[in-house]
């Protein structure tokens, strides 16, 4: 629970169509899309799912779920990612060794692909995936959901997993929504043109 505890946050707000009937239902929904740890031998390069917000290694109990009127949990995303520059020396070395051992001048494209995959597998066993934890607080009083991120990719991933887990659709909330509530934008004119003239 780094961001909230540090007290320095950026967040995106959502309004769901409804809230879970009980905390047990919320736990069930979270468990249904709980985070599954990546294994280096796994074919997947990334994994995303729910974890406990305080104990971000726990994706079973969600023991810190309830805080006053809030359900608090977190989206964990683990991803193995290697840049071309990171891979290059290991691929070149593997290709060099392969050519020497097989007495070859050139390596076929398919073989090159296999060598690259072997290198990536070896690198995965020797490293940890990059982990991103994004906390979520769902206020059962106002119904509003606070996602502690403003990254477009994180918002898209969160929306997708949330809607699948809870079977509840959500819409992003913006201060500009008040314009609609107070009568719409159609009759509004920018005041700047009246202050400085036409721009």
């Amino acid at each position, binding site marked *: 629970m780094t961001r909230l505890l540090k007290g320095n946050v950026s967040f995106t707000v959502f309004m769901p169509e409804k809230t879970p009937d009980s905390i047990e239902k919320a736990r069930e929904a979270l468990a249904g899309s709980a985070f599954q740890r990546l294994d280096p031998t796994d074919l997947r390069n990334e994994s995303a799912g729910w974890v406990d917000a305080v104990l971000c290694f726990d994706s079973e109990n969600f023991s810190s779920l309830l*805080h006053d009127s809030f359900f608090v949990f977190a989206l964990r995303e683990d991803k193995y990612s290697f840049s071309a520059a990171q891979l290059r020396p290991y691929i070149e070395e593997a290709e060099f060794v392969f050519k020497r051992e097989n007495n070859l001048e050139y390596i076929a494209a398919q073989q090159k692909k296999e060598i690259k995959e072997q290198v990536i597998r070896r690198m995965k066993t020797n490293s940890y995936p990059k982990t991103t934890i994004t906390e979520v607080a769902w206020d059962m009083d106002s119904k509003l959901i606070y996602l502690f991120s403003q990254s477009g990719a994180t918002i898209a991933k969160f929306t997708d997993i949330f809607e699948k887990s809870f079977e509840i659709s959500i819409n992003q909330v913006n201060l500009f929504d*008040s314009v609609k509530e107070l009568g719409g934008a159609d009759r509004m004119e920018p005041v700047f043109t009246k202050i400085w003239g036409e721009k």
Partner: protein
Amino acid sequence: MTKESGIGYLGSEFLLWLFWKSATDETMSLHNLGLGEISVSIEDSITLASVGDGYCETIQSMKITSLPSVRESMKSGRVPQALKIKISSGELDWIFQIKAQPFKITSVKLPISGEKNEAEMISARLIAMTKLELIMKALFNTFLLEREMPDFIGDIKDFLGISD
């Protein structure tokens, strides 16, 4: 800055309104929403942009609202694009960045109120965050209502020193 571009212009207008409220040291009563007296102050930075040519400048000072260069820049037609702002309500202060387009509130420093353990701290932060959400909505609604008042344009012009 035309109507065709949607209502994106409201972001800059709202920032100008916040600047104005900060400069006039006005407190706003949000008692009807259970939020008490609110004061707004611009912290140490403002970004102003020309609407036409894309010119943009960031001015940093501990006394942004009383700095003549800021008022002069606005008078010449530059509008606020980003502000660092402090909202105070009772003993609580929130400091954050607010950007006009796309309209966004970022890097919110939530108030610290002497919580002892982790659970208390999380609860206090969550309550502070929801309170800020309510305050900002109330401020934005107040701005939307004030901008429809007949004196609004004249008052802003007087504040900026723009003659008719």
